[in-house]
């Protein structure tokens, strides 16, 4: 539910490119009644801060993030995730509220790859989406995140975990 004070004097620099009202989703009604679960300041800071991430001391490549922020609504994000799943021949095993699980069709090195995605919100303008591997090979999971999911989600992604362009 949008609160008037939040929109006052606030200019969005970039809005969600996918218009929220174009999204058709069976759970739309349920989702508009309640927002995604709250992602608090500490969770937000510790997930998104690259300054706190010491793994760069040891790794040359930037490690692939499994978390991103988005300016789109929770419903839009969920619908987009479901579409992406279908694009890569992943079956949506279940989708409830702001959480879904998708499973790949082909058998990988350790069985079918299964991925869960959960949407949270820090504020109505800032959603956080967390991927995690539910089953299957870790390398295949990382490859899926980096090579498949990432480019497919670029329209709704604002910034990925570990990639910051600004000085703070």
């Amino acid at each position, binding site marked *: 539910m949008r609160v008037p004070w939040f929109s006052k004097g606030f200019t969005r620099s970039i809005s969600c490119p996918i218009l929220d009202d174009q999204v058709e989703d069976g759970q739309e009604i349920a989702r508009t009644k309640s927002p995604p679960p709250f992602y*608090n300041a500490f969770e937000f800071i*510790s997930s*998104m801060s*690259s300054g706190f991430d010491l793994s760069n001391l040891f790794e040359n490549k930037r490690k692939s993030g499994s978390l991103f922020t988005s300016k789109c609504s929770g419903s839009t994000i969920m619908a987009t995730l479901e579409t992406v799943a279908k694009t890569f021949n992943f079956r949506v095993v279940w989708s409830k509220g702001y959480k879904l699980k998708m499973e790949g069709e082909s058998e990988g090195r350790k069985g079918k790859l299964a991925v869960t995605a959960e949407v949270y919100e*820090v*504020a109505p303008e800032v959603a956080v989406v967390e991927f995690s591997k539910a089953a299957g090979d870790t390398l295949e999971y990382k490859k899926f995140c980096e090579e498949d999911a990432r480019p497919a989600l670029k329209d709704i992604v604002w910034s990925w975990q570990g990639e*910051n362009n*600004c000085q703070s």
Partner: protein
Amino acid sequence: MGCFMSVPKKPSHGRNGYENPVVLASQTAFTVSEVEALFELYKSISSSVIDDGLINKEEFQLAIFENKKRDNLFANRIFDLFDVKRKGVIDFGDFVRSLNVFHPNASREDKINFTFSLYDMDGTGYIERQEVKQMVIAILLESETNLADEVIERILDQTFLEVDVKRDGIIDREEWLSYVTKNPSLLDIMTLPYLREITMTFPSFVFNSEVDEISK
């Protein structure tokens, strides 16, 4: 503190004596080989700007941000905690003992205490609302997001509702311990699995260590 290495033919030292790896290994979860591997890492970081055997703030930033110097609030906070003696530089002993907290085998309690100190930016022993606000603003800036002040205040309100159970407007160690215990993902930043493979990442070419490798 610090004594010269007692083993001959070691790589050249800085003007300060480095602490003996055997001593450091005995104080931490690292083996002597691992401490020697950390020394290789330490050498490359500490010589990147000024070759004085110490890590200054700029060298630390370069190491964290893949050779881009960035005056980042969070990296500066970690630097300050690693700079145990408050000298403005991190020496090798500080480096090893601080990284020890990030070892997979380090105690949960140590990790929780470290995160508390991270967020308690002015070191008062309490995490104050203003400190959290500063960090939230910094994170938003990093991802080029602008939020109205009222929105940020609301984030803080809801966060404190969850964590500040005593409702006194500040978060003390007890509240933090209780909260993190229920939400262990907040400790994810406190474990570096790479520390288990450090001897493979940074092989130490010291052949004449007089200490036999005894498994810890």
